[in-house]
């Protein structure tokens, strides 16, 4: 695979075999792993359901995450209570693990509201502009540092920020500026890049001549490539990077080497620009399959367990479909009210004019 380094951290092979790594070890239990497997299965189901809803005209757009479940579930489980997450627009599984109501995500893509999310202090709004959030995360991390919330003896007093971006975003000025600021201030931020090989129709080769993780060195902080389809490795590497940040050792760049099995968004047609043989090759590296194989061989899960999770996925699907009907459109009044924190006479007069116009329409 182009861009895959011999240094890539892998703890679970595509065939479901545990392998040792000199630097990283997965220290969780089989129960933890069963939990991750469940998260990945549910995330994939949610994603499929949302894709279908878009096809039915219920969502304006959807950004499929299929194939990236391990990268997202593994990294999300590395976050602690005080850590804060800055997503792009595809981190549905991260949101799910952190407890963000899925209706929040659906509302954005349905256009019922612009992002009135319930867990903003933990998981920020999706960012549609590519890479902007890398700077927000870095600034937030600078704030963590100013608050003295790094390097304390009591680990509960420490925090870090994690920001998700893709391989395409690595070309953005804002993302590169974020690396510079993070390095200059030694900010407690982890750049979690899901290199899913494609920026819409553009291959990674167009964004970078070298593996992305090697760029970090030029910015002056560690870069590491991890098998993004191996949830054990992702969890272990993200744990390490987040702990470095919380401890006061500054930023880390993680390249989660993975694949976008679906389209960029539901408006996209991957058959126009990529080979199906590629997809086939990656299908063999599926994150869910390999973990299920491993846990089955371990005796940690069995058919009954998998069937129970499948039932859970079915009812999640039904819930998601039912949620759509309950999403309420934001009102023009609410929009007028929230443009500013401190209302202005000028905008208030526009609101009144519009209200008067509506009243006239109804009369």
């Amino acid at each position, binding site marked *: 695979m182009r861009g895959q380094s011999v240094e890539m951290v892998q703890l679970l092979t595509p065939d479901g075999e545990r392998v040792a790594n000199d630097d990283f070890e997965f220290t969780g239990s089989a129960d933890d792993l069963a939990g991750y497997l469940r998260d990945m299965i549910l995330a994939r189901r949610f994603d499929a359901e949302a894709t279908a809803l878009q096809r039915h005209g219920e969502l304006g757009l959807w950004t499929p995450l299929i194939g990236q479940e391990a990268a997202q579930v593994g990294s999300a489980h590395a976050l602690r209570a005080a850590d804060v997450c800055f997503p792009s627009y595809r981190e549905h599984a991260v949101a799910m693990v952190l407890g963000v109501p899925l209706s929040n995500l659906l509302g954005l893509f349905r256009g019922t509201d*612009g*992002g009135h999310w319930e867990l*903003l202090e933990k998981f920020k709004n999706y960012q549609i502009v590519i890479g902007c959030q890398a*700077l927000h995360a870095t600034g*937030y*991390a600078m704030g963590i540092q100013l608050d003295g919330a790094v390097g304390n003896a009591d680990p509960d007093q420490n925090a870090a920020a994690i920001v998700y971006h893709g391989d395409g975003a690595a070309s953005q000025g804002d993302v590169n500026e*974020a690396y*510079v600021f993070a390095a*200059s201030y030694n900010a407690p931020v982890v750049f979690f890049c899901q290199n899913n090989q494609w920026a819409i129709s553009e291959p990674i080769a167009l964004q970078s001549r070298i593996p992305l993780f090697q760029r970090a060195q030029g910015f002056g902080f560690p870069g590491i490539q991890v098998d993004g389809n191996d949830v054990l490795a992702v969890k272990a590497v993200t744990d390490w990077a987040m702990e470095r940040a919380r401890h006061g050792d500054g930023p880390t760049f993680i390249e989660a080497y993975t694949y976008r099995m679906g389209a960029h968004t539901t408006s996209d047609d991957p058959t126009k620009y990529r080979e199906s043989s590629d997809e086939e090759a990656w299908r063999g590296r599926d994150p869910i399959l390999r973990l299920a194989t491993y846990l089955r061989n371990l005796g940690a899960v069995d058919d009954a367990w998998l069937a129970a999770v499948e039932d859970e996925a079915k009812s999640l699907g039904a819930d998601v479909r039912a949620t759509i009907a309950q999403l309420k459109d934001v009102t023009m009044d609410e929009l007028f009210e929230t443009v*500013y924190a401190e209302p202005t006479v000028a905008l208030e007069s526009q609101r009144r004019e519009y209200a008067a116009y509506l009243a006239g329409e109804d009369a």
Partner: protein
Amino acid sequence: MNEKLTMAKALNRGLRRALQADPKVLLAGEDIGKLGGVFRITEGLQAEFGENRVVDSPLAESGIIGTAVGLCMRGYRPVVEIQFDGFVFPGFAQIVSQVAKMHMRTGGRQKMPMVIRIPFGGGIGAVEHHSESPEAYFAHTPGLKVVSCANPNDAYWMIQQAIGSDDPVVFLEPKRRYQQKGEVNFTDRPAPMHQASIVRHGSDATLLAYGPMVKTCLDAAAVAAEEGTDLEVVDLRTISPIDWVTVISSVRRTRRAIVVHEAPLTLGLGAEIAAKLTEELFYVMESPVLRVAGFDMPYPPARVESEYLPSVDRILDTVDTSLAY
């Protein structure tokens, strides 16, 4: 308690007071620390408040604005300095796509109490990109507030009001007026920053200006007075939103309006003011709203900037045109 200060010093004092008043206020920007900023507006502040409160930034405007967004999310009130008007554009995307939209995007959950200080305007003989008037770009962006101070007293108070606002404020400082002195009253607060102020009362016509052009309009009014024309001068102070109450009440009395700004004519603030006055005072005004502005060209080289910039003569010529209706 009064003191005669330059606008630069008044801003410095205002920033100092804001830093003293609220530990969450911090300054960030290029060269603002040891150097005190290229215009010395932040002089001495890093020495007094330390490197965590007065932060020298890497040379990247988008980075400065974007990290300030994150600082707001963490509960800070960042005041960022963009070194010159023409250098704001690398940070423009963060300002219009993120800073301005964050409050509405989040249904009011996330405030952006950020101040973006920009020295703006011409008249100082500078090189390219150092004399621009980008205010209309910001005024056309819902979610931002845009203000400009025209005298040291307003500079001292408005910078504090901007920092105290829970909305993002683009704070435009008329760089050619930095070294002009004026009385600063440290005890009596002036009008809130969202109000315009009538800085000279008159009855024949109203000159509407903000920032660097307020003084030019006052100079023009002084000359006009010698010729027997009694001009009113309104300092808008707030460019977005405009204080229509003050503007309309003035023009209702004088029945003639001339808007003066350095920015290019087409789609400048003058266009909006003319449209609004026409809507509100169509049967009252004796003449159309006229505009004295920069021309629709990139800002010219320094040796000819005086021809580009609205001057006392150009303003008086336009007043004559208005009075001839």
